[in-house]
């Protein structure tokens, strides 16, 4: 069945809080310069001080994952020119935010209180802070957004799903604009122990996606937020268009609770769907921001998926992983990587896969080892990228992003 003509959806604002610092440009500038943010086997937002950005009341009414989201959203709305006033009827502006886990720090802290002091010591703020939808609720409250407001939860694919869902909400007319992205703050004892006990975390604490020596992911934290608008409305208000979300593809592996399908069929199909949604082919793709977790299974399966989806172009298109610089931000990853990709396309630069030195047999793509490279584009008029996000549960999402 041919797809009906859908409105274009543009990115007019971006914001990020990542282990490389606060700010979308901090992420882009530092990653492309080869900086990474690991300490003691993790990538914390070490310099993030909530009350630098939020009032005391706002800060204590938000789990750390929500604080990251709120700060990223402030930057995104400023960059969209929305800081003083919303450009549309608030009921026509939605918010879709992704998270893998939600407020796990709040959950653990209150469980400690329950165990140590009993039920009456559990905070009345426990539920509103830990609930996985706290992020979208907080952004709605802070910015007065009254359209469709909800969060999506799909492990490490949540950021990608959120952006894709936001795009569809605009295309279907449910909203004129959607504030979207993802946030995560899971550097907590239970989360660490749980990921470690399933052997997902790197025991050496080194994130080196696609390298033969990779031994697991390194957990990071943070958030990214994008302002998406109906293209026609954005142009009518004279907005600066940062990028276009050209396509969205989402599939499920139906293979295993945590392991990706080693053949990469589901990931490949997500990429092909995103390209078809964009009306583009592999010949049009200039860069791939990989999911690239630094686990044995993901990086091998993703390489297989890229070869299926991109065919003869797979070896020519630069593929790099943001996780080599900031670790794995779980439900925030897809959003942070979309924000990184938009800036990479804008500057025509392929950011590096840091720590990549030793190829594995059969994994022979251009992983942009260690140093950023100028991006060669198939067209003089635009740069186009795919950004992959895959999650435990077999969730696969690909976004197709384009900048002028």
């Amino acid at each position, binding site marked *: 069945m041919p797809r009906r003509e859908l409105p274009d959806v543009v990115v007019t604002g971006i914001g990020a809080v990542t282990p490389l610092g606060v700010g979308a440009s901090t992420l882009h500038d530092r990653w492309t310069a080869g900086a990474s943010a690991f300490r003691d086997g993790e990538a914390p937002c070490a310099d993030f001080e909530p009350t630098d950005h939020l*009032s*005391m*009341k*706002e800060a*204590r*009414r938000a789990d750390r994952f929500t604080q990251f989201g709120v700060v990223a959203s402030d930057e995104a709305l400023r960059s969209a020119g929305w800081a003083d006033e919303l450009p549309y009827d608030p009921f026509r502006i939605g918010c879709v935010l992704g998270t893998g886990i939600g407020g796990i720090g709040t959950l653990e802290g209150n469980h400690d209180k329950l165990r140590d002091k009993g039920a*009456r*010591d559990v*905070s*009345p*703020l426990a539920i*509103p802070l830990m609930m996985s939808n706290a992020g979208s609720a907080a952004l709605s409250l802070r910015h007065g957004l009254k359209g469709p407001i909800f969060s999506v939860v799909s492990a490490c694919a949540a950021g990608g799903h959120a952006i894709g869902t936001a795009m569809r909400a605009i295309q279907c007319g449910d909203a004129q604009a959607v504030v979207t992205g993802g946030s995560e703050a899971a550097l907590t004892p239970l989360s660490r122990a749980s990921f470690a006990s399933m052997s997902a975390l790197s025991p050496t604490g080194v994130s080196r996606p696609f390298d033969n020596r990779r031994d697991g992911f390194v957990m990071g934290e943070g958030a990214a937020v994008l302002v998406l608008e109906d293209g026609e409305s954005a142009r009518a208000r004279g907005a600066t268009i940062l990028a276009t979300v050209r396509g969205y593809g989402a599939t499920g592996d139906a293979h295993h609770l945590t392991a990706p399908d080693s053949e990469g069929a589901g990931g490949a199909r997500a990429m092909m769907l995103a390209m078809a949604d964009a009306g583009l082919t592999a010949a049009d793709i200039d860069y791939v921001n990989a999911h690239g977790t630094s686990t044995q299974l993901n990086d091998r399966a993703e390489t297989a998926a890229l070869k299926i989806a991109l065919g003869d172009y797979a070896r020519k298109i630069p593929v790099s992983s943001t996780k080599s610089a900031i670790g794995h931000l779980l439900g925030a990853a897809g959003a942070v990587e979309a924000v990184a990709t938009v800036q990479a396309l804008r500057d025509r630069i392929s950011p590096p896969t840091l720590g990549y030195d030793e190829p594995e047999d059969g994994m022979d793509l251009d992983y942009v080892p260690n140093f950023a490279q100028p991006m060669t584009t198939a067209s003089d008029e635009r740069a186009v990228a795919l950004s992959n996000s895959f999650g435990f549960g077999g969730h696969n999402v690909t976004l197709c992003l384009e900048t002028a």
Partner: protein
Amino acid sequence: MSTTTTNEIENTVIESLKTFGAKAEDITRDATWEAIDVDSLDLAELAQVVEDEHGVKMEGDDMKHIKTVGDAIDFITEKKAA
């Protein structure tokens, strides 16, 4: 009820409200919850602290009549004395 106890109760209430984000200079006996941006979630937290420190329960119906900082201090003081 001794002055010391009343002072302790005042102290509990004021310090809690400051923790919730109310400005010290705005916390007066006559200040309403709205005026210092204290909502139902803050009051639930206040009730926890008060029970912890003074053994006084502030529950559903009690809260309906407590609309200012002074109301809260008086309520706790009276209940503690009872």
